[in-house]
């Protein structure tokens, strides 16, 4: 079973630790996990995990989009903290047509509501949302709960 973690712009401090943590959790659940991001977000990941202990595969967001087909992944997990990240998540969701989780966070509660509305009105993804920016804990706690619904069945 293959999982994709889709990242947005790396300017939100909570994004990189959440990406590493989500990759660790999905690997433990038995998924073959790939993180898809722009080059800036990818370089942050490379520095965090130089020996690829947690991040097994990493791909470029534009190149992946170009060749992506329905069914390429069994789970899409997107980190959504900007308008552009919501649009990328919705687009990847519509191409893959697979199970999906949107991790929506921002320092601004109104933005969280706006991004939840964008994702909920365009996908059937499970939405995990919290007001968070520097501190990833509020969204991490909710992610742990949500992932229980995506265990790989034997």
């Amino acid at each position, binding site marked *: 079973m293959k999982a994709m973690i889709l990242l947005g712009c790396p300017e939100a401090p909570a994004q990189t630790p959440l990406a590493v943590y989500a990759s660790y959790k999905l690997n433990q659940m038995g998924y073959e996990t790939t993180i898809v991001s722009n080059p800036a977000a990818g370089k942050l990941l490379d520095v965090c995990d130089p020996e690829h202990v947690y991040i097994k595969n990493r791909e470029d967001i534009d190149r992946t989009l*170009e060749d992506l087909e329905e069914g390429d992944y069994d789970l899409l997990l997107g980190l959504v903290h900007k*308008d*552009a990240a919501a*649009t*990328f998540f*919705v*687009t990847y969701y519509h191409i893959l047509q697979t199970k999906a989780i949107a991790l929506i966070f921002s320092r601004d509660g109104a933005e969280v509501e706006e991004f939840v509305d*964008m994702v909920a009105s*365009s996908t059937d993804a499970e939405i995990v949302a919290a007001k968070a920016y520097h501190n990833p804990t509020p969204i991490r706690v909710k992610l742990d709960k949500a992932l229980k619904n995506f265990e790989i069945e034997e």
Partner: protein
Amino acid sequence: MSFCLETYLQQSDDYKVLAKNSGVKECYKIIETESDELIHVNPGDKILGARLIGLPPIPVGINEAEGTILITYTKPCHGTAAIELPVEKEELISIRKMDIGA
């Protein structure tokens, strides 16, 4: 037709940027206002060989007299832009066929 939108935008100067560093919904409004004709496509559908990124239904504007189309262009760190770029007449025929009728 093989077409890289990013390369085109970097190497050409015959397109107009109607909005940049914006939100996707604001860009949709601009496309709706500035276009003589509108079609709609799904996220990930390819226009001129490039996948469109956005919320469904994604508007694509057509200004036949100018020979241009209006589309959105999104990058993770720069938000969404609305751009108007020239296309061949034959391309307009295939673009119109992509309309999902939203």
